């Protein structure tokens, strides 16, 4: 088992003829992902450089290929609209990689996707991967370790890209495989968040522990801590980036800002610790902390 995506998942790419869309579609195919088509308005009937069929819109693409997931590489001004188009065509899941989408566009898009029952990952994220089965997004596939019989596996939820790779690599180097890794993105308004994913990982038979990577800005980690306290029994290791970030400054990610006294790392760390989460003080020790927890067999007592 895994969450959200697996070897059966069939995916189209919106923006498949753009530079990034084409490159990452190729990378996903190479990983073994079932990329089955693409959408570029006005190019229906042609084939992509990967020899995949191209359609004018998501309705046609889903109907012809049997896909129900879209990976979106559309430029920021049109990206929220592209996500809504996929939802309107019946997508079960939209993985929105694009960085720089106006927040008010995402406010509308998220509501529209909710109304259509479409799950969203992102925006401004590396995507989602179930190692050995399905990679949707821009993460380097080889750093991940597919679960093998009798091995422990962790689920990873993260607001950051490279920091996720760091955590994945630390786990892989210690023989810990990953069930599914989800980059939820660095924007203030996004799709799936900690709580929904914690629920999925808690229910997943093949996930033995959960790594949660957060950062300054907003109160999502505090809400997650509250949820963990009541509903999560599996061991959770967290790291919160930005303990040294000054208030009022946007630290690269649109959502990473301490404002009005809200969104500090200290508040998040305190909430997580009091929920029984092991918070790694160093970004270099995330894998090691998880290794120790899994070895000791400790769970969160609820």
């Amino acid at each position, binding site marked *: 088992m895994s969450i959200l995506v697996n070897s059966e998942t069939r995916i189209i790419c919106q923006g498949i003829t753009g530079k990034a869309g084409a490159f990452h579609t190729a990378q996903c195919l190479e990983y073994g992902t079932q990329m089955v088509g693409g959408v570029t308005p006005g190019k229906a009937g042609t084939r992509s450089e990967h020899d995949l069929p191209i359609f004018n819109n998501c309705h046609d693409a889903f109907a012809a290929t049997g896909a129900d997931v879209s990976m979106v590489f559309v430029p920021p001004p049109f990206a929220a609209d592209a996500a809504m188009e996929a939802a309107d065509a019946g997508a079960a899941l939209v993985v929105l990689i694009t960085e720089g989408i106006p927040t008010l566009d995402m406010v509308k898009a998220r509501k529209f996707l909710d109304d259509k029952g479409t799950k969203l990952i992102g925006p401004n994220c590396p995507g989602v991967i179930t190692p050995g089965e399905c990679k949707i997004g821009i993460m380097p596939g080889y750093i991940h370790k597919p679960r093998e019989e009798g091995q422990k596996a962790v689920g990873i939820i993260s607001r950051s890209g490279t920091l996720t790779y760091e955590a994945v690599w630390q786990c892989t180097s210690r023989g810990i495989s990953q069930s599914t890794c989800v980059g939820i993105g660095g924007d203030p308004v996004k799709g799936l968040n900690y709580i929904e994913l914690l629920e999925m990982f808690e229910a997943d038979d093949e996930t033995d522990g959960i790594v949660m990577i957060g950062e300054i800005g907003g109160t999502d980690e505090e809400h997650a801590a509250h949820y963990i306290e009541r509903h999560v029994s599996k061991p959770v290791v967290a790291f919160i980036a930005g303990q040294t970030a000054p208030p009022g400054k946007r*630290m*690269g990610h649109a959502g990473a800002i301490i404002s009005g006294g809200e969104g500090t790392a200290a508040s998040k760390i305190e909430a997580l610790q009091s929920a029984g989460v092991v918070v790694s003080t160093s970004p*270099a020790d995330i894998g090691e902390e998880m290794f120790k927890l899994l070895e000791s067999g400790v769970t969160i007592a609820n």
Partner: protein
Amino acid sequence: MKIHEYQARELLADAGVPVPASSVVENVDQAVQAYDKIGGMVVVKAQVFAGGRGKAGFVKLCNTADEVKTAAEFMFNNRMISNQTGPEGVEAKKLLVAKAVDIESEYYMAVVLDRTKRCPVVMVSREGGVEIEVVADENPDAIVKQWLDPHLGLMGFQVTKLVAALGLTEKDQIKAAGKVLRGLVKVFYQYDCALAEINPLIRTPEGEILAIDAKMNFDDNAVFRHKRLQEMFDPSEENPKELRAQEHNLTYIDLDGNIGCLVNGAGLAMGTMDLIKLHGGEPANFLDVGGSVTKEGAIEAFRIILDDPEVTGVLVNIFGGIAKCDTIAEALIAAANEIGFKVPVVVRLEGTNVERARELLKEANIDQLIPADDLTDAAKKVCAKVA
């Protein structure tokens, strides 16, 4: 992105929000002319982003043309120093000369994004004129909120509820406050604000409702679609190094320490700062070179870091995913050749093509370059070098 008070007043006035008569001036003569036009009692306010203007003497009530002249001369000839500016202070290039009005009551009105509810929230309070964080802390019930539906926006009953919370009783004042509220929400949507705030909104003894001061922040991701905001952008209020980095698609933020950081990815860049601090060092900056960094971009990143005279050591932390380690290594070598490293540069590379990268760096045999085995090793080495 931020704008000046006078610009926020312009946007509000265009949306039908009444503001006191005012002029923006760029020299002392213009200030006096503005007074001659407005007359009576005026307030002269320096147009700078930093707060603490009143205490620093950069907001002055004036009753005569001579007083305006004195105030304007002071504000144009001195740099404003407050607890928000740092010791070097900031220069006021423009002043706002506005008609001073008598205040009977002060209110607060703002629209801001609620991240948890994923929609804008309108907040009003009868306790205006003070910082809203203070009100939220001491008397949270004094703030009344209404959340805006993502597709429907501000609804009539919400206006009624919010205005009722201000405690106005006269019909025409209730109507006027409703108009202000609708105007503020309109500006919020029209210009993709992250925050649109009127504080204070006031009632004069004659019952007039006026916006006295306004603050606006905009969503940086949306500025591309607002020509008017692009024209309002004031580069002189920004950190020059941060602007220079932006031109090269780098995200740089100046900090107070002495260890320069060059990292790919915002989360990892923050994590690297934390790691330095954990090992007893102080980061000099946040710098995210991004996923698709070019050799030129990386060289510029080194230039920006090494231009800082405070920097006595550098930590390069790259987890190569899409950005390949050998590309970074080539950039490092080129940067070393072009600008030369005068301080120790500790390099930690991991990920795609790392073996090739390590070979390249070894062959290049760069002076001052210190390879690190892993993240912790890198932090320890750079902290030891600058200690």
